Structure formats: structure tokens, C-alpha cells
């Protein structure tokens, strides 16, 4: 599927790993999600890259932004709530890779 001129790599339900990239400086991938495996819920479309915008760049090339869900028990060893409790966050495509 083509979204905003880009080929959408992850479909709904796709399992993805959030990478722990060595980015110095501004990025929008919280520490607590790095190295975690989640499931793609939707693709929001193509957005300018915040890591470029933050330093006066144009934000090009744009990136697909995915809403990814995670089980709370996968995020926190000591999570006491029900197993079904989840968290969703918006992650840019270069921070994701397929997981099985």
C-alpha cells in the first residue's frame, strides 16, 4: 500500500521491534519503548522527520508514522494491572524493524 508517496511496510497487526538507535539529540522515541516488541495498530501517514526539523532541516525525507501498541506487562516487570492493559505510542518508521 502506498501512503503519502511511500510504500507502507507494516500492515495492521504487524509485529515490530522498537530499535535503540544511537541518536545524539532530539528524537521522539521514549526510552521505555526501546527494545520492546509491539503491534502496529495503524499508519498515520507520512510526516516530516522531527530529527531533521529540530536542527533547522526541512524534515525531508518524510517518514511514515505508526501507532504501535504494547502490552503493559511487556513494558514493566512489576506491572500489577490486568494482562490486557496496553499502551500505544506513535513511532517513526526508521525506529522500527520487523519482529517475529
Amino acid at each position: 500500500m502506498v501512503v503519502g508517496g511511500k510504500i507502507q511496510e507494516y500492515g495492521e497487526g504487524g509485529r515490530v521491534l522498537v530499535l535503540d538507535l544511537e541518536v545524539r539529540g532530539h528524537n521522539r522515541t521514549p526510552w521505555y519503548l526501546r527494545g520492546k516488541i509491539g503491534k502496529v495498530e495503524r499508519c498515520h501517514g507520512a510526516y516530516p522527520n522531527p530529527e531533521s526539523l529540530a536542527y533547522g532541516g526541512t524534515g525531508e525525507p518524510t517518514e511514515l508514522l505508526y501507532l504501535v501498541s504494547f502490552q503493559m506487562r511487556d513494558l514493566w516487570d512489576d506491572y500489577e494491572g490486568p494482562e490486557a492493559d496496553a499502551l500505544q505510542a506513535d513511532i517513526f518508521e526508521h525506529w522500527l524493524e520487523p519482529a517475529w
Partner: protein
Amino acid sequence: MSDSHGHEHAGMAHDEELGYYAQRVRAMEAVLVEKGVVSGDEVERLVNESEARSPADGARIVARAWVDPEFKNRLLSDAKAAVAELGYLESANLPDVVVAENDEGVHHLVVCTLCSCYPTWLLGRPPDWYKSLTYRARAVRDPRGVMREFGLELEGGVEVRVLDSTADVRYLVLPQRPAGTEGWSEEELARLVTRDSMVGVSRPLAPEPVAA
């Protein structure tokens, strides 16, 4: 002291003794206006615009969704376009918004752990607690504990879904319509919709019992 835009900063003058940052912001604005970088009128216009926004705007959207299922569907699939139907600013510069619907099985809680992203143009300014380091830390780790502090204990079987607004999409919770409101008008329903219920820390108000 002359004022370049010809009217007094009545607000600023009321601050008994401006703190360091208040003074700094006043100086920055003055320098920027003097250099022609921004216009004082534009700043005034934005001040007025911000004062015009409040949770009542979000409440109207929620009430409309409660009474009009087709509007609700449009809201859930393209919230930016749907809210434009109600006369809200639709501009390419405004962030995208997604509406997350609560139902019997799911309750949403919105946070921005990295800064304090919030659908300000639909709800007005975020409350201090939303921006606090404590909320940002705990909402993603102990959402039920956070909700409990706001007086909300979810029934068994209801899944919590925390939304961390990490990118350019803002989230608005569409709470469940309270029971006992059949036949109510949109205006009456909107009065039950609190700001906190659209963030997810609590539920809308319950209808008051009718006097016997």
C-alpha cells in the same frame, strides 16, 4: 514610557513584581517587535485566540458524537475533518488529532511523556498536573493508580489503554455517554463532559437525580 503598539500591557502591569522570566519574555517580545520580526498585533491576536479556547469546545464535539452516530463515525475516522464541520479552525498548521473512543471494554488515558503535547485548540490550555513530571512518569507505568487519585476505579474486565502522544498526533478521548441521559439535548449532554474525562483521568459527570 512609549509603547510601540499604542495600548498598554494591562496584564503585565498587574504583576506586582515581575519575576526574572516574566521580564525576559517582555524583553524578548519588545526586541522582536522592534526588529520587525513579529508584530505586536499578531501577538495580541494570538493572546485573544488562546483565551477563547476552553474544554467547552471539546465537550461540544463529544456531545455531538453521542447524539449523532454518523458524525461519530466520521470523527473516529478523520477527526480533523469532522471537527471542522462544527466550525473549528481547520488549518494545515494545526496538529492532527485522533479521537479514541471509550466503551464497556476499553478506557483510554492520554499523556505526553516527552513534553506535554495536548489538543490545546480543542480543550484550551492543559492543566498543571498534565504537564507535571509526576504525571508524565506515572501515567505510562501506573495508569490505574493515577486514575484512582482522580477518583476513578474501573470495573473489572475494562482494559486500560494509555496513549503516549510521542509525535505530531494529538489525542482526545471520547468518553462513554452516562446512563440516564436518554433524550437529552446536545447542550445538556455537553455540560456533563469535563476536561478530565477527555484526557481520561476521570469519567463525565453523572446526571443529577431528578427531585421527586
